[in-house]
């Protein structure tokens, strides 16, 4: 099995000028296969379809977390309602300013072990899958990888490759 066999083919993506509000909404209702149950990250493509970043729900969390809290241990001094205030402030920000622009990708015909290798070494949970023309054709998510692994565990005699 290769990356392209396990990926969710690209249906939705974000544009750099989307606001965070639009992006969050799309993340919530994005298609996973047939169902609109949301995804944990979406690729960001520019006008000509090139991959320029990825926005995950972690980036949304970061968008409401003020940078000064990164610098010191101030978590215990936050107040009730702080997240709501910062969420409202952040909703108009642009995807381009909050996305992760250094994207870890895999090629369509990468083996699953290569994909796991990339995910673990780069500490990412979703990777865009690129074709030979460097275009995004789908997204490979950690949890699909997990299902594939459990399948092999439960049904041991299918082990090996196809």
């Amino acid at each position, binding site marked *: 099995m290769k990356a392209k066999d396990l990926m969710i083919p690209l249906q939705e993506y974000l544009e750099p000028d989307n606001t965070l509000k639009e992006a969050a909404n799309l993340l919530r209702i994005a298609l996973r296969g047939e169902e609109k149950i949301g995804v944990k990250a979406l690729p960001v493509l520019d006008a000509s379809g090139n991959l320029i970043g990825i926005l995950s729900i972690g980036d949304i969390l970061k968008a409401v977390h*003020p*940078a*000064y809290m990164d*610098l010191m241990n101030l978590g215990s*001094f936050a107040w009730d309602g*702080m997240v709501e205030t910062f969420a409202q402030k952040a909703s108009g920000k642009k995807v381009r300013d909050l996305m992760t622009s250094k994207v870890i990708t895999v090629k369509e015909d990468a083996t699953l072990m290569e994909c796991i290798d990339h995910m673990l070494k780069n500490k990412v949970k979703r990777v865009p899958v690129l074709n030979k023309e460097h275009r995004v054709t789908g997204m490979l998510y950690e949890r699909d990888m997990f299902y594939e692994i459990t399948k092999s565990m439960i049904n041991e005699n299918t082990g090996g490759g196809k």
Partner: protein
Amino acid sequence: MTEEVAAATTQVVMGSSFWIATAIFLIAYAVIVSEKIHKTIVAVFGAGVMLILKILEQHEAFHVEEFGIDWNVIFLLISMMVIINLMRPTGVFEYIAVKSAKLGKGEPFRILVIFAIVTAVLSALLDNVTTVLLIVPVTILIADALQVDALPYLISCALASNIGGTATLIGDPPNIMIASKAQLSFMDFIYHLSPIVIIIMVFYVFAIKLIWGKKLKTKEELKTRIMSMEENEAIKDPVMLKKSLFVLAIVLTGFIFHGVLHFQPATVALFGAGLLLLLSKTHEPHHILAEVEWPTIFFFMGLFIIIGGVVKVGLIKWMSVQVLELTQGNMFATSMVVMWFSAFASAFIDNIPYVATMNPLIVDMAKQLWPDLSGTQLLHHADLMPLWWSLALGACLGGNGTAIGASANVIVVGMSEKLGKRISFGKFMLYGMPIMVMTVLVATVYVWLRYYVLKI
């Protein structure tokens, strides 16, 4: 007087090494001011050129006090940085900041004043760069909680840290450098600079009352956000905190008595750093040492070598002759020129290279005025002492003039930008320059009154 000066001028031989060294010095300073290349790189490369061209021999750069690296400054800085790096994770600074905000009862202006005083005191005892690094994040949190503009708190943090840092030997790098060059003790600074810094702080509080007093308002219900913060939760490592406070107490006591006990301040600080490293029981000193601001340390080392070069060829001596000619050897006039020139110079250029240049200049000036004296008799000549204090006051307080005047300002502006609260150069100067002029004026009156009228 004028004959003496003329005689001294002739001693400077303006040969090829004089001009080469002067060129290296001027180019290096110009590039540092332009900020085209990182100042540390400029200083280290400039030092390398001084050595490779044999303007300065390596042993002079490393081992001769007059021309070389001032290891006293280097080790004092490194040691204090190590102590603070070990203290920081304990949470003591968050504790102090939150406690101060609660002391202000959630009242925005009262918090501004308390933060200014706390920043000034911490800057006097630690160094002001570290202080602002620790205060700024909490400051913005508090401003956000009270839904007030963070700008007054940020600017005041920088200004108060420079004022507070002026008070002690360890408060601000210029003082560390002056103390080492002039062989002044920690208590000399306490005796001569701390009183005026306290007076200046009083003026400063009135000034910020005038500027921001009426503008900072918040709602009652927001104050409860501050009052419900639990400062004890900030302490992450109470055991290490006790050890740190113990060592800090030893170090500060050591500073107080270093003059009497004939220890250099660096000895005291190095002992403290070593002791706290030992007590921390860390097996990985690597990251503690890696957090030392090495770029600053190397900037100092490079700079000392460059200055050593121009001292050796006589440029500094020549400059000191010019100053004495300008002031006709009148010591009061000289100290006023030193203070005000230092203030404006440090407002626009880094006060570290400035003081590194002024230190030997003042020593050369003293040598021309009292050619028969040497050692502390020369450095501590009653007529020379006000000059050291004028240099310290001018260089430290001058840092407040602009956003680039002191490292603390650069850090505050840089952090604020990163944290989404941009402070433009003009905006900083709008507050910084009047405060600088006011504080230097107060210092001028003090120097005049204390050293030239009352002579105490």
